[in-house]
């Protein structure tokens, strides 16, 4: 099992979700986050004082899938989230030690 963490632009979330649904993904968690990569922030102005906003709003998706699905999921997310402009985000793949379905107590890939 692998965990896929993807940080994408908030307005791409719906398209990513729809694309993953076509892959019959069994679950997904989404959090609202702030961050920056090489993009850096932008300047805003409030009552005459300029200030830099370093952190930009992003959305983080987390999903755990069987090893065989990883490649397909990563490229699906990548295609759906891409705009071609800086700040499109990143995808990380991490190993997962254990998964448990709380309702039934199932463990391992059956719990996904």
């Amino acid at each position, binding site marked *: 099992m692998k965990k896929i963490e993807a940080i994408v632009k908030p307005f791409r979330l719906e398209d990513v979700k729809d694309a993953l649904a076509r892959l019959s993904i069994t679950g997904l968690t989404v959090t609202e986050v702030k961050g920056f990569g090489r993009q850096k922030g932008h300047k*805003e*102005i*409030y*009552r*005459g*004082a*300029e*200030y*830099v*906003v370093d952190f930009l709003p992003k959305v983080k998706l987390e999903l755990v899938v069987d090893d065989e699905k990883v490649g397909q999921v990563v490229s699906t997310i990548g295609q759906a989230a891409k705009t071609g402009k800086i700040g499109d985000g990143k995808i990380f793949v991490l190993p997962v030690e254990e998964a448990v379905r709380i309702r039934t107590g199932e463990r391992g890939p059956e719990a996904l």
Partner: protein
Amino acid sequence: MSKKIVLPLILIALTVTAAGAETEAPTTASNLAAIELVQSHADYVWTLVAAALVFFMQAGFAMVETGFTRAKNAINILMKNLMDFSVGSLGFWAVGFGLMFGATSTGWFGTSGFFLSDYVPGGDPWVLAFWMFQVVFCATAATIVSGAMAERTKFSSYLLYSLIVSTVIYPIFGSWAWGGLYNGGGWLEGLGFIDFAGSTVVHSVGGWIGLAGAVVLGPRLGKYSADGQARAIPGHNPPLAALGVFILWLGWFGFNPGSTTAANKEISWIFVNTNLAAATGSVLAMIVSWLKFGKPEISMSLNGALAGLVAITAPCYNVTPASAVIIGAVAGVLVVLSVLFFERLRIDDPVGAVSVHGVCGAWGTLAAGLFNVEGFSLSVVGVQILGIVTCFIWAFGLGFIMFKIIDKTVGLRVSPEEESDGLDFSEHGGSAYPDFQVSAYAQK
């Protein structure tokens, strides 16, 4: 007797007595009295409807201040606004009204009418309607200060200030300009001072006390960088701020026209002047912010509308609509420049209260002399300037002394830890947005 006779007899008796109870034929005198009574009733209705509109301005101030400050201090802002009205009502009932409108032998303060003693049940209730209209004005002046002192003032100390402003500072100056509206008579109005609805009496008094508070408090943590540059501390909710401004604009239709305390045709041009000044103020402030900062900025545009409203408050009765446009325009430009000016002096005014109410209140008072429909007169303008300066000395001076004393005794400002945690938590043990994760825009 049989029922057939009793019932008709009863009916006839009732009809005859009802006919006998008719009023006598109207005379000219009784007609005149009736017409006067209807006018009097209309005066009551208009005055009290206007009072209700001005009361609702408290919600306007609460929303503007909340929107322009950070989420972690929202409860504190609301508590101050709630108490400004509540404590203010009680203070003005007990002491303030008497000082402001009581009988006076000196022309400097009143000495009768405390605890609404002028009213006896069954007596003439006009004093009640008049008091109701005046108390909402007192509360307006008091709550202006809350914005200038936002995000770092001890709540208990603020309560103390609120009591003092509504029992002493506001009413005594008010007696000089408006005492004659009731039982009193002030020296300033005796000189012909024009301030129809209170650019000076209400707004400048509030604005200059707010300046005193901001000066004694010092700027918020993080407002100025080490080299003295002003940093942005963005308000957390522009929609609330805008809602607040619209509520204030609406309430001002009670504030200005209501000051006739009479139902007459004059309220029509007061309405129009009020609206034109507000509109022009917001447009000009938007334009100035656009030119200076490169983009039309919401907070300055909102301040501009308020600046126009404050400025037209004194001259609303005695200027033409075209003049109202000019007065509003100047106010819109003035407020933006004034905000930047005070910021450069390292006086931190989170909502621009000093610029909107103090500076534009002074401008509006001057404008009442400059644009007077009765013609330009240097002596009239001179009295306006006298009133403006006197107000500054009184309000800023007394405010400064009061805040200094409070600071030296019970303390005026919260500790740095309390300020960083947010006053909602440290002063009130709560959070305005418990269901949301609140984080402020942090800066270097």
